């Protein structure tokens, strides 16, 4: 029973981070700033849900599988975020700045 509660808490926290990440994705002004919530809040959310699943499942081989999934998830999502940001930088997509920018968010 206690195990279920802990697992549920982890899953809820993960979902919360997913929601925050999506909110950030919608609120941020440009591509670069949108990368921040989309690559990281989502990763943490997914990892948290997986930890919840691991707690729920208890000690078994699936635990190791989940650990591998977390590792690959971290590696691939970080690399994806970098790749998107890099190609945007290489294509000289302008990024949003606070000072020079217009008030309505169309960046320099």
């Amino acid at each position, binding site marked *: 029973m206690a195990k279920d509660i802990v697992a549920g808490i982890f899953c809820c926290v993960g979902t919360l*981070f997913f929601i*925050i990440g999506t*909110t*950030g994705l919608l*609120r*941020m002004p440009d591509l*670069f*700033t949108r*990368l*921040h*919530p989309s*690559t*990281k*809040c989502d*990763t*943490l959310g997914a*990892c948290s849900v997986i930890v919840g699943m691991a707690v729920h499942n208890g000690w078994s*081989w*699936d635990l*190791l*599988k989940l650990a*591998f999934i977390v*590792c690959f998830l*971290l*590696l691939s*999502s*970080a*690399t994806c*975020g*970098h790749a998107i*940001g*890099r190609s*945007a*930088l*290489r294509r000289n997509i302008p*990024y*949003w*700045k*606070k000072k020079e920018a217009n008030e309505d968010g169309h960046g320099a």
Partner: protein
Amino acid sequence: MTSVRALRNRILLFFLLLLFWIVLTASLALHELVMGAVCSAFVGVLTVSLLGRALDPRITPAVLLRIPVFMLRLAWEIVKANIDVAKIILNPRLPIDPRIVEYRTYLPGDLPRTVFSDSITLTPGTVTVELRGEVLNVHCLCPYHEEGLPGLERLVAWLFGVRKPVGEEGNG
């Protein structure tokens, strides 16, 4: 010297793959282990012929042993900083001041730099957008996010057993 290193790398890759196989099959039965050994050896040979080498030479048994501790410390950093970004996102005024900063790292080789930049990307507030030689271009959400970089660098240096060169501050 290099051949000994290459051999050690291949053996290491073999054991990593075997570990992955054991986790996948979820059994320690003898016929599974034998099959796993054969498949790991086959995939190892295939990898060497495909990529030209087995593993990055900087992956050593000591590094592999430190990875779990590294992951835990990194996870703590990620959680801490994620809460920070969550606060920024949920703040109605959206207090961001993004900028791209240059950071010169002392970490040698591709792999430590890759791990460093991936750690940066995973730690909220910062995304590595370019890695050219030893210079990283990091997109920061707020200026103070930049301050976390040296700590992460120290963590990655610890993982790979690299010492910070003394008196080479700012040396190209």
